[in-house]
């Protein structure tokens, strides 16, 4: 159980200052990319049909009906209640971008919870395999894109809280639209097609991120784009530099134009691209770390003089470790990262439905205690 909320009152301005490395003093804030519906439901005690909620999150534009709209509203309420209950400075929302996608497959991981379903993208094929598919694809017009969830949260979240808008990134969308295997072949067989898809996705992302960043209730953009696996980037750094990072800069600029921090979540070993992310793209913070690749303390030592570092408590430990181990690891991370500023505590990836809730609480509780011991 959580002893008490992380904070009595949300203070997004402090979180913002940490993300922009404007303060070296003050409490270490908490920040997550996302929390699964099961976790939010368990934390708040508000029932949520997680399986159906997932259908809403991944719904195609044509699949929306009254029931899905109602579920969407329930999810937004749940997200606000979750942030309030934990004592977070922000609430996570996602924009409504009607990009038709392939259906995800679901599998029960069979651990921890009675039903712990994960969504899996089809890795072999997508909706766009060739030029004809590309031309037929129903690209959304700008007037079909909206940020109603930000409006919704603006009038309902507690004072001092702001929206962190999670946006699914270019490379992630590219993989979904083509299927990873087909994308891999296309980089050799038809690179122009890949380039054209990326360009269309970039225009959508630039518009949406700009729209959200301009909203006064939005505090930051959390851009989620897994570009690596355990030993390197999926595609070569050369390909990424030619096709992806210049576009990522355009999206980042659309956010910065409105003075909002741009936070990059990318799983995997993306060390070969970090200089590009920092110097060319201009990200404000990096998220998603695994001890197996490089412990977060090491990322902090290398990059915290230029960007903020978010999270890093390894998902394996949160899923399989004991509460004592989580507390000890949280302490070690805080010792290495707290005093220099520019660090937010959090998981290595997200509050996923396969982590133990008591371990998640232990991470939060230990961070709060650490802050209190330092007089914050």
């Amino acid at each position, binding site marked *: 159980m959580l002893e008490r909320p992380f904070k009595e009152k949300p203070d997004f301005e402090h979180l913002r200052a940490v993300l922009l490395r404007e303060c070296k003093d003050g409490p270490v804030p908490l920040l997550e990319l996302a929390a699964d519906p099961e976790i939010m439901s368990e934390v708040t005690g508000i029932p949520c049909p997680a399986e159906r909620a997932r259908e809403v999150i991944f719904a195609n534009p044509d699949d929306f009906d009254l029931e899905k709209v109602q579920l969407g509203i329930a999810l937004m309420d749940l997200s606000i209640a979750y942030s309030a209950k934990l004592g977070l400075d922000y609430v996570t929302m996602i924009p409504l971008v009607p990009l038709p996608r392939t259906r995800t497959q679901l599998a029960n*991981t069979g651990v921890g919870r009675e039903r712990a379903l994960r969504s899996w993208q089809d890795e072999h094929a997508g909706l766009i395999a060739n030029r004809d598919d590309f031309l037929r694809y129903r690209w959304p017009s700008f007037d079909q894109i909206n940020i109603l969830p930000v409006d919704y949260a603006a009038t309902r979240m507690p004072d001092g809280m702001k929206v962190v808008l999670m946006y699914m990134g270019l490379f992630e969308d590219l993989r979904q639209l083509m299927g990873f295997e087909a994308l891999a072949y296309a980089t050799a067989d038809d690179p122009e097609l890949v380039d054209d898809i990326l360009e269309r996705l970039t225009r959508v992302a630039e518009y949406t991120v700009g729209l959200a960043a301009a909203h006064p209730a939005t505090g930051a953009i959390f851009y989620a784009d897994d570009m690596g696996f*355990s030993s390197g980037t999926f595609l070569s750094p050369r*390909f990424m530099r030619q096709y992806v990072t210049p576009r990522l800069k355009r999206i980042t600029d659309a956010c910065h134009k409105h003075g909002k921090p741009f936070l990059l979540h990318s799983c995997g070993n993306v060390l*070969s691209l970090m200089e590009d992310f920092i110097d060319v793209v201009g990200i404000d913070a990096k998220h998603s770390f695994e001890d197996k690749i490089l412990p977060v303390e090491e990322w902090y030592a290398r990059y915290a003089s230029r960007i903020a570092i978010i999270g890093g408590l390894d998902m394996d430990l949160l899923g*399989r470790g004991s509460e004592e181990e989580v507390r000890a690891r949280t302490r070690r991370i805080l010792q290495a990262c707290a005093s220099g500023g520019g660090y937010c505590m959090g998981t290595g990836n997200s509050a996923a439905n396969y982590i133990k809730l008591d371990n998640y609480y232990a991470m939060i509780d230990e961070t709060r205690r650490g802050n209190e011991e330092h007089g914050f």
Partner: protein
Amino acid sequence: MVDLQKLHDAILNGDAKTSAAVTLDALGEKVPPIEIIQKAMVPAMDEVGRRFECQDYFVPELLLSARAMKVAMEPLRPLLAASGVQRAGKVVIGTVKGDLHDIGKNLVAALLEGGGYEVIDLGANVAPERFVEAARDAGANIVCLSALLTVTMTAMKTTIEALQAAGLRDRVKVLIGGAPVTRQFAQDIGADGYGDNASVAVSLARSFAKAPGAA
């Protein structure tokens, strides 16, 4: 006379059209399938694996080479089966129960096949009993398990236990890999080997064959 170096280079460059054509030419000239595999495919896929490890190649290049290797392998399979030629070993491979991710597993399967192994690919979300059944039916000497999530990798332990319970553990080596898997985890669950990337699987499989008391 057909030049098997062309097949080697076609696989290395991910050129499926050339690899298929050269293989058919070689068969037309009565080159034994096992010679095609040993002289062209094995060294080509070894080089692909080496380039992947030193980050000259990335996942697309690996997939392209695997595709070129597979189309070349297609006409060889029935001939190999009919001739009864001994392959380097038999491998049963799959992504464990609860896990649907299979790109990494497919790459390992392709590299092993290119490395001269007969590969029985069970696909994704495979229950422990399916691994047991396939390993027993095929007379496999290696079982490869893949997982993407920290929670699904626990199914690797269950699968090893199932192999043990079925009395197969002493004749199959178990090799594990995947994003969250570590050497320590492999030791903890009693796996015989751990690969932190796809190309390591082939060298591990070969090391099993050389080891005393090899399966």
